[in-house]
């Protein structure tokens, strides 16, 4: 098996409206930054993997018109999309492109420019997505029961509400803990110059003062809709050793898909059937990724985690699902400050998706941030300890897509 390393990281400033650049320019910036970081010339790149949420910029197959802007014309380009986990799926695609032996240097890039279309609502749940899906389901002959459950659940935020409630009921976590996660992430984001919602000195009380949107989520809990792009340069071991003083190795990866928690789950009964915080696919992905990476006890061996958490409950849920804390106890670790930037198991020191959510870019940034921390290049939000092994997660679809990626400083 060929070893694959991250040798370059690039991202753009993420914010609510990037009016200074168009989509092609924005993606071009991220790719260029990654190539510059890697010291790789555009003509040296062998292959590209790209992805974003297709409807969200209002352009179908946007890589076709922006091919020239990222230097992809005359090169293989593979478009990979899996909803929220797109960014990670794109990196996995680039990993396999290099690991297959077909290519030596591959660029993975993911982006979103929410402000180009009226899609911010799509991330937070909502009727028009539900409606669009309903029309489609009618075409496919879905039953009234299916349609109703679809309308009730909505998209990501709807599912995340149910998911959070299951978790809180099971573990004893309270809404105050969600305030603590969100405040921590906004504070962390304030140290990350690429992040969107930056709030230096944000306290759980500040978050608690924001309006309750849908229990248990307050306005201050919910991720923004951002414009932004990010990119990674991946290379084979030969190239990485020659070109990069500190390559970050992708040691393990997996993306097991789980049961949909909406209309099509077992018996067609929708979200009522499963515990939406169970997320078996995430656990299975983690087990496989750790096994590939030779990690036996993630609680001891993992130094840092970048968890995909558009909603604060998910930071706690996924930290447990991938074995970083005991079942139902992540919120206690949070209380003890273990997930802080200087804690035992820092989680989302970049601010995570909770502070910055340009969907196609979000899951890619998790892997990118792990790489930056391992290289010691995270600048203001660099953790004080040395990072040898880091893990990144992704979440997409209706709780059914995951991607877990384990990165290390050595082979």
């Amino acid at each position: 098996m060929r070893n694959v390393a991250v040798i370059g990281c690039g991202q753009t400033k993420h914010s609510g409206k990037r009016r200074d650049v168009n989509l092609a320019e924005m993606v071009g910036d991220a790719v260029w930054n990654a190539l510059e970081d890697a010291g790789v010339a555009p003509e040296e790149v062998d292959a590209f993997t790209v992805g974003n949420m297709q409807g969200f910029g209002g352009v179908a197959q946007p890589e076709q018109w922006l091919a020239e802007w990222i230097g992809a014309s005359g090169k293989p380009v593979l478009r990979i999309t899996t909803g929220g986990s797109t960014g990670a799926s794109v990196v996995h695609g680039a990993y396999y492109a290099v690991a297959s032996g077909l290519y030596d240097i591959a660029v993975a890039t993911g982006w979103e420019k929410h402000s180009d279309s009226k899609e911010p609502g799509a991330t937070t749940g909502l009727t028009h997505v539900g409606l669009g899906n309903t029309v489609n389901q009618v075409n496919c002959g879905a039953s009234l029961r299916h349609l109703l459950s679809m309308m009730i659940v909505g998209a990501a935020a709807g599912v995340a509400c149910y998911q959070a409630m299951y978790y809180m009921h099971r573990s004893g976590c309270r809404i105050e803990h969600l305030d603590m996660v969100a405040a921590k992430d906004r504070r962390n984001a304030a140290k990350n110059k690429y992040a969107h919602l930056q709030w230096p000195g944000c306290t759980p009380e500040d978050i608690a003062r924001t309006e309750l949107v849908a229990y248990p989520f307050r306005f201050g809990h919910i991720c923004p809709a951002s414009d932004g792009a990010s990119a990674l340069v991946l290379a084979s071991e030969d190239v990485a050793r020659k070109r990069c003083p500190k390559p970050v190795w992708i040691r393990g990866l997996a993306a097991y898909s789980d049961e949909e928690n909406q209309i099509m789950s077992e018996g067609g009964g929708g979200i009522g059937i499963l515990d939406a915080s169970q997320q078996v696919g995430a656990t299975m992905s983690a087990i496989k990724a750790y096994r590939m990476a030779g990690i036996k006890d993630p609680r001891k061996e993992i130094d840092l985690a970048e968890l995909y958490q558009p909603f604060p409950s998910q930071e706690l849920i996924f930290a447990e699902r991938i074995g970083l804390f005991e079942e139902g106890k992540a919120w206690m670790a949070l209380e003890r400050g273990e997930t802080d930037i200087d804690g035992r198991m820092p989680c989302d020191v970049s601010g995570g998706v909770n502070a910055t959510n340009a969907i196609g870019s979000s899951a890619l940034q998790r892997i990118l941030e792990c790489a930056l921390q391992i290289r010691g290049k995270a600048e203001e939000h660099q953790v004080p300890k040395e990072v040898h092994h880091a893990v990144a997660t992704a979440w997409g679809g209706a709780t059914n897509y995951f991607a877990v990626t384990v990165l290390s400083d050595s082979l």
Partner: protein
Amino acid sequence: MERRVAIVGYAQSHHQQDMPMTREDMVFEVAREALRSAAILREDVDTVITASTDFLDGRTISNLYLSMAVGAYLKDESKVEEDGAFAAYYALMRILSGVHHIALVEGHTQGSVVNPHLVSTYTVDPLFERQYGFLNDISAAAFQARMYMERYGVSEEEIALVSVKNLTNAARNPWAHRKMPDLTVEEVLSSKLYYDPIRELTMSPVSDGACALVLASEEKAGEITDTPVWIEGVGSCSDGYLRDRDICRLDSLRKAALTAYEMAGIRDPSAELDVLEVSEKFAHEELLIYEALGLCPEGKGKTLIAEGVTERQGETPVNPSGGALGADPVCATGLVRLIEAAKQIRGDADAHQVPGVNRALAHGQFGLCAQKNIVFILGSDKK
């Protein structure tokens, strides 16, 4: 390629205009049949790669409700958002990496739900061309066809010959959508004009359909079947946007083909390939494809079709299945070519079987004027 990977099973739907079946059922059936044809169980599959697009499926995250249908539950799954041939390419890379051993690949589109030609208007540059509203896949192809005809002196009759060949071939293929056993050039040229010179019978039909393919590493392939079809070469390439290239030449296809030929050790494609299955979304495109694949010099594609070289009984048969003109379920079209090429090698290509096929080429494309292209070279152990 360091490891060898084989096609060990496949299935496709009866491509048709308005399939009386939900997308879930359609996908489930081809996935089940593909596993059945390989005589393996869902449990044997390591990874599943599907191909569909959000615009064409008319919903956000098009694979969302299809993971269960395709059998990807608790499997390492991903989706490519383009032709299924690219999904096969991704699955191939996953197996070559050594991380996975058996992959299920699936592609589908129900053109009757969301019209693919309408979707194509959303793929043009949103800052300039989209504002004018005149560019879509058909009008872009019309520009391409007209330029090509002017530059190389090709007539509408010569282009119509491609339709006649492919649609009469399709009549012998039980899975094809548009079957016209007695089609003539006159009928092609009197069919409805969309954008001059593109007519109803010189462009692909809007089809509903799905297909699935099982790929396996060499050691697994040996356990599964006595007749593996080996992937001997693969090449993929994307051109720049419409505006940034010469649309009369399929440069990315030329590059993809050269890569695949080199990997498979092919020097003279016309002599060494026994059959070709290509994705010609428009009749004139097949002539451009001949040229890019190196079957003839630039501008000479018309000679091959006029002399019958690419007929089913010709020296270098192209699209004995009827090609994309015979059925075009968009995200399945290229993957169907891979299946048809594999069937030809195995000798189970129904009434459109070409005798004595040992080596075949399959081509998939995506984008306006075939911006992205992928080429596979398949071979058997027979030779």
